[in-house]
């Protein structure tokens, strides 16, 4: 019986292999082009769907296609166990640039970059070390100063003197952002009480909504949301309870114009620009490039939600922080684990 099994399975494999061989013969060889062949790897499905980090990356990828004329393939929904293999496939296939979009891909980055020296492996997320090879580069935001901007806005926009920060998981970027929020709020409004809560993961919308609702019921009237796809729930809770919302990474104004006070843009397009220029120059420097407060933009505050003089005060504090006039020390605020 088992012999028969082996045989028929063998036949299936032969047939399939034959198909694959035939296919590779029929496939047209890629014409020599000036277009740079690149790949962007996402762990999430449908990265452009919700505002935030992944849409920022998605937008950056589109920029590479439209402005720089790159030929970009987007891998999405790549499960964690398959990150390395996915990156390897691109290296094997001779892609010139492979872009990682999350710190969860650092391991794959470290493992694959040394194997394909001809491909540039770029990590566009927070990291503190480089893989052991020269064909790498990283671009990352300084989440502390990013958080400070959030704190400056939220701390002065609140009437109840309570602001809420809802995030997905307690990873380092989130902790740094929280520290920044606390320090930023403290610097301009020492009597403001910031609080944080976690939704538990980066996708659950109902849970994020209820966690935010909880914060609002405890008094927070400005909410900063950073929970991946779950942020939809955070925004909804803010809308329902008429709290103000500060958007993460990309511009959230179009989503709920009556609720979104502002968004603090991470300026992710800038990372893609920097990468494109480095690649075009032919020399990519193996370095971690940190983008600081100059690369972040605070979207003009919603005048329907805040009076003009308060907006002016907030704008002024942001200006003073950027210029260095307002000094905010980097203080770590631990998130309880």
């Amino acid at each position, binding site marked *: 019986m088992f012999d028969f099994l082996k045989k028929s399975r063998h036949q299936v494999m032969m047939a399939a292999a034959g198909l694959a061989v035939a296919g590779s013969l029929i496939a047209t060889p890629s014409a020599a082009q000036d277009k740079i062949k690149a790949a962007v790897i996402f762990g999430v499905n449908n990265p452009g769907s919700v505002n935030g980090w992944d849409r920022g990356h998605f937008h950056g990828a589109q920029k590479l296609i439209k402005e720089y004329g790159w030929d970009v393939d987007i891998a999405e929904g790549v499960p964690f166990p398959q990150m390395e293999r996915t990156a390897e496939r691109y290296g094997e296939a001779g892609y010139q640039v492979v872009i990682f979009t999350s710190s969860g891909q650092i391991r794959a980055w470290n493992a694959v970059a040394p194997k394909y020296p001809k491909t540039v492996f770029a990590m566009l997320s927070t990291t503190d070390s480089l893989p052991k090879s020269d064909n790498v580069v990283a671009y990352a935001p300084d989440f502390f100063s990013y958080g400070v901007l959030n704190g400056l806005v939220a701390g002065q926009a609140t009437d109840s003197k309570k602001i809420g920060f809802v995030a997905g998981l*307690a990873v380092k970027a989130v902790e740094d952002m929280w520290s920044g929020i606390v320090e930023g709020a403290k610097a301009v409004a020492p009597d403001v009480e910031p609080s944080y*809560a976690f939704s538990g993961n980066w996708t659950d919308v109902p*849970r994020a*909504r209820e966690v935010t609702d909880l914060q609002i019921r405890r008094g927070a009237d400005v909410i900063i949301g950073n929970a991946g*796809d779950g942020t939809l*729930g955070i925004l909804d809770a803010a809308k329902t309870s008429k709290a103000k919302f500060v958007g993460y990474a990309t511009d959230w104004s179009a*989503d*709920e114009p009556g609720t979104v006070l502002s968004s603090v843009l991470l300026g992710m397009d800038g990372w893609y620009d920097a990468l494109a220029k480095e690649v075009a120059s032919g020399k990519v420097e193996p370095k971690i490039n940190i983008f600081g407060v100059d690369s972040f933009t605070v979207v003009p505050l919603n005048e329907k939600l805040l009076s003009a003089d308060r907006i002016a005060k907030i704008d002024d504090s942001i200006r003073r922080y950027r210029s260095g006039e307002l000094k905010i020390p980097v203080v770590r605020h631990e998130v309880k684990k």
Partner: protein
Amino acid sequence: MMLDPEFIISALRVATPLIIVALGVLVAELAGILFLCVEGVMLCGALFGMLGAAYFGDPWIGVACGLAVGISAGLLCAALFVWVPADQVVIGLAFNIAALGLTSFVFRIMTGVVKNSSISMAWPVPEWAADHPVLVFLFQVPPLAWVAAGLFIIAAYLLFRSAPGLMLRSVGQSVEAATSAGLDVLRVRTVAMAIAGGLAGLGGAALTVGWVHSFSANITAGRGFIALAVVYFGRWYPGWTFLGGLLFGVGEVLGLNAQVLGGNSHLYLMVPYILTIIVLGMTGGGRGPREVARPYERD
């Protein structure tokens, strides 16, 4: 804290989709069908409910869309495991994956075509009631929670005190007895699946249109299975199933509230599940309809 009206409203928000879906599962189970594809049907209802609400600008139309899509999905499931018939468990699991793929796909296509946002269904508190806390509370209860309660009362009556209900339950208890009584088992089960699917779809719409006002891929995240568990928890009685759903809602909100106590938030997120197990342990189990999951073929 448990008596805090905000807490209760929050728990109702969580429980409502669960309860509605659980009713659908109950109907299917009583007819002898293991409704494992409930997760997929709920997800379909969630998506199309949202699309309908956003497209027509009216959440109630959205809910109706969710109901309609749920009925269609229920009929499809009926075709698969009543008429073919194929194994209910495997079809159920495969259907869920297919539904996940399909809804994510459709959602992606519709991005930009329809806005991913629906209007709240909440009734504004009228002026004459604004001073009475009890009335304010009643007006804050999500409308679909009232719908759910109504559905349960109707279902309990129909299932246990009417002829059609008896027909449905007999098909679930013993196909031999039912056939010898002249019932067309396949037809009864198809109707049961249409109802069950409709309710599951309605529950899905209650999640998106009634609760979070937006859709996201895999937004149900296992809540369909929780509804299934709730039915088993409730030992196939409508009343206990209703309470089981409420219990889960309470548990989840409790877990979310408890984050403030400090410590890792995930430990508190375990609360609803552990609570359900404990209560289940205290109340013991029961015997379900005997025909559940048995394939039936008309000879």
